């Protein structure tokens, strides 16, 4: 388990105070724990990526004040795609100030099953927005909204904050989230240098007479005005002085004027700004008491700081300060200056009470930062979840859902020879299948059958292909013929080489192979297939239930723990008729709830997609171990022309050649995508906009907008995104086609025509590049209701290998 912490703010700020101070203290201590593997991250705004921070230099910089902050950033990017389900992303800084909004980041992490933990100091911008700056309000709403939806654990500095968050969750209709209270430490890692001078104006203020101290930025929430009212009405007359320490914040012009114009300024009223630590320390120690009349706080660190110096505190009577101050504080009504004045007077009139209070404070033991960091570190480790299902040492069974005897018989020799650990097959099949198999199969594997009659048990079989398969697999999970852990496969999956069990079980973890992110799956946009519809349904289900959402339909055999699948069916009893993807439901559930026993890896399938230009894969295989067998790819003129369709001894050498051939085509396709991507980036740099293809279809008109020029790679398909709008209410279709012409209107390529539903808003047009080094015209044609509309732009076809 790795713990990723974003320390961008801490690196960016010029002086460390407030929240960044807390981040520094906690992170330095977490880095020392051997049971935590911490990765520190810095967000690079220009390139929109996270970069790794050098941990050793971080410690030197923030603990020992050695080195520059610029040297902390290694330049090594952190690819969020590499985060594993057992990893934790921990936000402890004021990350709402960063440009990467959590509303965008957290869903990406959640899709991968990463655990999300956040440290919340307060939710004042939500509960008391009137005291906050506009920029803070809008950014904080985004941040807290994201975490309330996606967090697996919330830590807070006080129970009052967790209670406020619970209340907010109820108001929003969201489920509660586990919470941990850690408090804040008071032994800051600051050495007050003996050379640091105490500001003379502070000494002057302190020596003028007995004074009440307020420490903190002057802002509406801190309620300085109430204390000043109390002094103006009574306390100045009685010889008491008032010292404000802190800069002037926002929206306090009237109060600041009142202070600046005060008749007793620098006589009995003092406002000190920019004081160093030594001066603040001095003022605390010499104060009669500290006033803390705030309307709301996340914690109330000045209270602890006053206690540490043995100075009594008068605090506003609000839950958070009652929690932090406990019996060590005295409290007053924050709406009444009289209440404050009376509380103060009771000490002055009864000195023995004041001394009692000081004696009590001497017994105060602040929470140390070590204790805080221990609580946080333990909480991070606690979100590990042990699976109640022991992982077996061996996998020996393979389960097929099949109705095609010949296809299965063609695939089984590959399994027999290349997967020697498999001893037994369970075939979920039509009723007539077993007899045929027993008659024709001569191999070494033991066959067990689960026929449709047994699986359906009287229930109707869905007609849709994807729905039927999902239903049957859900039914099969009840059968005792299946081992607890088995490999699930379709009859067109063939291993390419000898494989060991470690493909599925490695280091005590199941290996899951994903090929896409379900949120990005577009499918056949003009006419979505049954498979596409299943992916969309699965995506919606997973997102609705807050599960990870990668696509595990990788068209290769995968390991399934039947006990966990049954847990899914118990948790969601109605899903078996919904036509979801069994692979994606299972693995995303496993990733979300049992991340410690799954390691997700890029898929390892040859010919998925059948040809590399089938669609733009965003995940690339690390290795190719299985083939998704398409018979038509072996036909004349196709990519596997000349290769054997059936098993023979030594076929693994031929399979290696197939892999090389496919990878070459993949490389060509990737190159074409790179050319197009580079064109888009450069077009954007030139014109300040991403190149856009846009159609607006009306009943008797069509507006086509195309970029000023388009650039593609020769000989490969380039998928161009199209945005379409229409005011027509119809289920009809229109046709979209393209041609490449030279400047003399000679047709160089007559492209494919696609039929698009009028209601389709986004889709892709695959344009094939002709031989490179060409400058010509790209003509786009829309045909609707016997009318033709054309758009033209310049086209550059780039040669491969530039």
């Amino acid at each position, binding site marked *: 388990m790795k713990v990723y912490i974003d320390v961008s703010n801490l690196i960016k700020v010029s002086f460390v105070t407030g929240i960044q101070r807390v981040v520094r203290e906690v992170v330095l201590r977490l880095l020392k724990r051997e049971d935590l593997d911490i990765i520190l991250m810095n967000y690079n705004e220009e390139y929109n990526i996270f970069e790794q921070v050098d941990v050793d230099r971080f410690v030197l910089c923030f603990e020992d004040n050695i080195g520059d902050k610029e040297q902390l950033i290694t330049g090594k990017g952190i690819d969020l795609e590499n985060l594993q389900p057992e990893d934790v992303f921990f936000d402890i800084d004021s990350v709402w100030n960063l440009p990467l909004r959590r509303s965008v980041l957290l869903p990406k992490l959640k899709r991968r099953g990463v655990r999300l933990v956040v440290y919340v100091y307060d939710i004042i911008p*939500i509960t008391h927005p009137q005291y906050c700056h506009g920029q803070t309000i809008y950014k904080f709403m985004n941040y807290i909204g994201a975490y309330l939806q996606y967090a697996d654990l919330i830590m807070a500095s006080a129970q009052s904050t967790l209670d406020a968050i619970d209340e907010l969750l109820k108001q929003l209709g969201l489920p509660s989230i586990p919470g941990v209270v850690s408090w804040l430490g008071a032994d800051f890692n600051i050495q007050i240098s003996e050379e640091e001078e105490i500001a003379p104006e502070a000494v002057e203020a302190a020596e003028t007479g007995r004074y009440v101290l307020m420490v903190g930025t002057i802002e509406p929430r801190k309620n300085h005005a109430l204390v000043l009212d109390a002094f103006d009405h009574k306390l100045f007359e009685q010889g008491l002085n008032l010292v404000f320490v802190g800069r002037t914040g926002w929206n306090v012009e009237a109060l600041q004027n009142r202070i600046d114009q005060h008749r007793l300024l620098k006589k009995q009223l003092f406002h000190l700004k920019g004081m160093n630590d030594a001066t603040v320390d001095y003022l605390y120690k010499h104060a009669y008491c500290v006033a803390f009349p705030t309307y709301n706080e996340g914690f109330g660190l000045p209270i602890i700081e006053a206690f540490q110096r043995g100075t009594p505190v008068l605090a506003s009577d609000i839950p958070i300060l009652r929690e932090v101050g406990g019996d060590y504080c005295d409290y007053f009504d924050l709406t009444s200056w009289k209440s404050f004045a009376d509380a103060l007077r009771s000490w002055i009139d009864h000195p023995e009470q004041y001394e009692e209070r000081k004696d009590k404070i001497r017994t105060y033991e602040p929470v140390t930062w070590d204790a805080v960091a221990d609580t946080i570190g333990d909480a991070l480790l606690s979100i590990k979840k042990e699976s109640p299902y022991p992982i077996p040492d061996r996998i020996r069974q393979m389960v097929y859902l099949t109705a095609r005897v010949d296809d299965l018989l063609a695939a089984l020799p590959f399994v027999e020879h290349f997967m020697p650990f498999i001893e037994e097959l369970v075939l979920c099949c039509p009723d007539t299948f077993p007899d045929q198999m027993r008659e024709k199969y001569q191999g070494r594997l033991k066959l067990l059958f689960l026929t449709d009659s047994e699986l359906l048990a009287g229930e109707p079989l869905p007609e849709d292909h994807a729905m039927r398969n999902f239903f049957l697999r859900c039914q099969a999970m009840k059968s005792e013929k299946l081992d607890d852990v088995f490999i699930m496969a379709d009859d067109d999956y063939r291993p390419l080489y000898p494989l060991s069990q470690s493909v599925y079980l490695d280091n005590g973890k199941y290996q899951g192979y994903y090929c896409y992110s379900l949120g990005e799956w577009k499918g056949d946009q003009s006419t979505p297939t049954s498979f596409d519809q299943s992916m969309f349904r699965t995506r919606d289900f997973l997102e609705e239930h807050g599960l990870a959402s990668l696509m595990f339909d990788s068209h290769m055999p995968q390991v399934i723990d039947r006990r966990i699948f049954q847990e899914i069916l118990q948790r969601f009893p109605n899903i078996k008729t919904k036509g979801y993807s069994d692979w994606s439901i299972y693995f995303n559930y496993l990733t979300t709830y049992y991340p410690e026993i799954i390691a997700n890896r890029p898929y390892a399938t040859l010919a998925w997609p059948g040809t590399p230009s089938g669609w733009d894969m965003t995940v690339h295989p690390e290795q190719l171990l299985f083939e998704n067998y398409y018979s038509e790819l072996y036909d004349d003129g196709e990519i596997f022309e000349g290769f054997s369709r059936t098993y023979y001894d030594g076929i693994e050498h031929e399979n290696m050649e197939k892999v090389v051939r496919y990878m070459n085509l993949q490389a060509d396709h990737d190159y074409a995508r790179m050319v197009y991507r580079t064109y888009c980036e450069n077009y954007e740099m*030139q014109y*300040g906009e991403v190149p856009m293809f846009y159609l607006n279809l009306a009943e008797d008109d069509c507006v086509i907008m195309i970029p000023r020029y388009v650039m593609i790679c020769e000989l490969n398909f380039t998928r161009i995104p199209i945005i379409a709008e229409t005011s027509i209410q119809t289920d009809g279709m229109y046709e979209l086609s393209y041609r490449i012409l030279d400047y003399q209107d000679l047709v160089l390529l007559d492209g494919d025509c696609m039929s698009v539903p009028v209601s389709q808003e986004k889709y892709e047009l695959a344009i094939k590049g002709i031989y490179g080094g060409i400058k010509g015209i790209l003509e786009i044609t829309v045909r609707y209701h016997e009318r033709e509309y054309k758009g033209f732009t310049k086209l550059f076809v*780039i040669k491969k290998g530039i």
Partner: protein
Amino acid sequence: MLIYESIYDLVEEKMKANDQTMPCSKEAFLFSAEMEPGVCDGQKMIDMENETFFEAAFMGMLNRLPDASAIQGWEAKLKTSSPDVFREALLSSIIFSPEAVLIGSQLRNNRVIIPRLREINILNEYIVEHDKDSAALMQVKKSEPKVGLKDKLYKIYLKLPLSLRVLVHKILRRN
């Protein structure tokens, strides 16, 4: 997005109870919640009112609310310009500002501003360096192209309502 909407409503209620207004409109806030940092999706902004469009452009491309000087500077144009003129001027101003260039702000699905060349012409330099044949074919020009009559007419065409654009199409086809 529903959660963000609910949070906005909760906060707005509290602000109103204290006689204060929200720092941005709900529409602009929800828009920014979907955007990658420094990105504005023109498609999603197309139906916004001018005031919301103004906020959304800042929040999308510059990751912040418009500051007081920006509000003051654009207030007059907000009230007096037609939506198309205002929006083009605003987006052009933002996208070519040093702040946007530093952040690497992007405008996607732009249907508002006429593309203009920025000073950097990376693509042409790249091609000239690596592919002499293509460079010769493309006849790359490094200087900013002059705005010709066609560009000016196209600019006017974009401001026309749809019915007039249809008429222009018909006339052009007839000819």
